[in-house]
């Protein structure tokens, strides 16, 4: 059989000529249009991913709308208001003269938060305060999905319009990360709609475990503190007020407690979730120094300032997790790590703080699904 077919390919045979012609044409086409062909193939791949993000965005909007109707029970259609909220934006302050920018940022964040909360309250009149916080977080996750979709679509269309391989390749290289973030926000949205704890809440969970059953008082906006005695040391445990989705104002809380104690605080221990590097184990615990708190930087600035003013050492305990784990329902490994951290804090206090000392333990993170 091989011999018969092989005869067709003999030197000067018809099939041989045709194949040679095809190869020559293919060579010339790839020589002149190789880049365009590569661009088209890459665009097609991006298009598939973009379609997935669009589906996630639409599903996110649908889940948000459904939850608002179910919990908020508005007597009107909240869809137009929700759609306008998904386009909500904030213009950050000018940073040409950075002096005082932190306070401008804080003011802006407060205004944004208040306005956003009002808008959510309008479309969810029957929601309780804690449900309102969850809805707020949920709409923010839907907003993030909408933004991811719009920005990706922008660069996709720009690449398609200009057929610039460099724009297209940059987008393609970013696509795995973009997909990871979009999936994480989708999971976060579902967690917020149900009120389940998320990975970022592990700091708040540690604080809640450390002062479980104690009397809590409000020390700053959406932030509470409890006084606990651990081996003859006074420990102020600070966390955002749960179980609604909330990060509170840990900076203001620490500031107030230090002022109340007249600056006589032996140490500040901050517990937070930290982004792990690839290869690191989820839920592994690491200790260090500094203010362990994420976000835009306002709260960290306040803590660093007050710690410097009174020369208070700031210690940090972090629980390692991925970005997608931080905003998805809390994994078992992370929930188990909270118990280890509680023990680590107790050991730290016993070994490094003298009896009679005052310590502030701040559990940083979103306290959704975590009471006190």
């Amino acid at each position, binding site marked *: 059989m*091989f*011999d018969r*077919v*092989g005869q067709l*390919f*003999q030197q000067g045979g018809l099939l*041989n000529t045709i*194949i040679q012609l095809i190869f020559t044409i293919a060579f010339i086409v790839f020589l002149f249009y190789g880049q365009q062909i590569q661009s088209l193939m890459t665009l*097609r*791949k991006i298009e*598939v991913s973009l379609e997935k993000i669009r589906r996630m965005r639409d599903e996110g909007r649908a889940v948000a709308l459904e939850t608002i109707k179910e919990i908020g029970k508005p007597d009107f259609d909240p869809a137009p208001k929700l759609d306008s909220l998904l386009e909500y934006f904030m213009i950050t302050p000018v940073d040409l003269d950075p002096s005082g920018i932190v306070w401008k940022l804080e003011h802006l964040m407060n205004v944004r938060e208040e306005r956003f909360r009002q808008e959510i309250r309008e479309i969810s009149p029957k929601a309780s305060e804690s449900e309102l916080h969850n809805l707020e977080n949920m709409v923010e996750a839907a907003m993030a999905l909408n933004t991811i979709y719009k920005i990706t679509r922008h660069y996709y269309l720009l690449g398609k319009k200009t057929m610039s391989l460099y724009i297209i390749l940059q987008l393609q290289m970013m696509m795995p990360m973009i997909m990871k973030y979009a999936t994480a926000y989708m*999971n976060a949205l579902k*967690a917020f709609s*149900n*009120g*389940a*704890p998320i990975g970022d809440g592990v700091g708040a*969970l540690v604080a*809640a475990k450390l002062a*479980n059953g104690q009397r809590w008082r409000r020390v700053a906006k959406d932030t509470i503190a409890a006084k606990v005695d651990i081996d003859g040391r006074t420990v102020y445990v600070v966390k955002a007020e*749960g*179980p609604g989705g909330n990060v509170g104002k840990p900076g203001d809380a620490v500031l107030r407690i230090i002022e109340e104690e007249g600056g006589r605080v032996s140490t500040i221990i901050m517990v937070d979730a930290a982004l792990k590097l690839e290869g690191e184990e989820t839920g592994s615990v690491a200790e260090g120094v500094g203010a362990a708190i994420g976000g835009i930087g306002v709260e960290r600035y306040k803590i660093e300032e007050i710690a410097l003013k009174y020369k208070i050492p700031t210690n940090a305990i972090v629980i390692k997790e991925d970005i997608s784990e931080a905003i*998805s*329902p*809390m*994994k*078992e490994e*992370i*929930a188990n790590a909270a118990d280890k951290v509680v023990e680590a804090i107790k050991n730290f206090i016993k070994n490094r703080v003298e009896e009679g000392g005052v310590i502030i333990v701040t559990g940083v993170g979103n306290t959704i*699904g*975590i*009471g*006190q």
Partner: protein
Amino acid sequence: MFGPVMAGQSPLNLNMLLMGLLMAALLFFLFRMFMPPSKPQEPEVVTVLECAKCRLKEIRMFKRGDYVFKEDGPCKRCGGPMVITKIFARPRGKVRL
């Protein structure tokens, strides 16, 4: 490796085999590109409850309104308060505690 199979065959036959393999690889690549990928399974979120008196542990699926340290009904064994001690996500189908 292909010595016994290809013995006595013209080199052109080998070319043909190679082209066939290339075509198959191209078809496979196109098929993969246009096929929707399989969707990873979403994890399940569970709630762990513990009796404050007798330490009886119970695990059930998470439901809206659950939160850590919430009291959720009396204990089946001693009638004490059942408190939610943990809420976490785990891979679907994992053996229950």
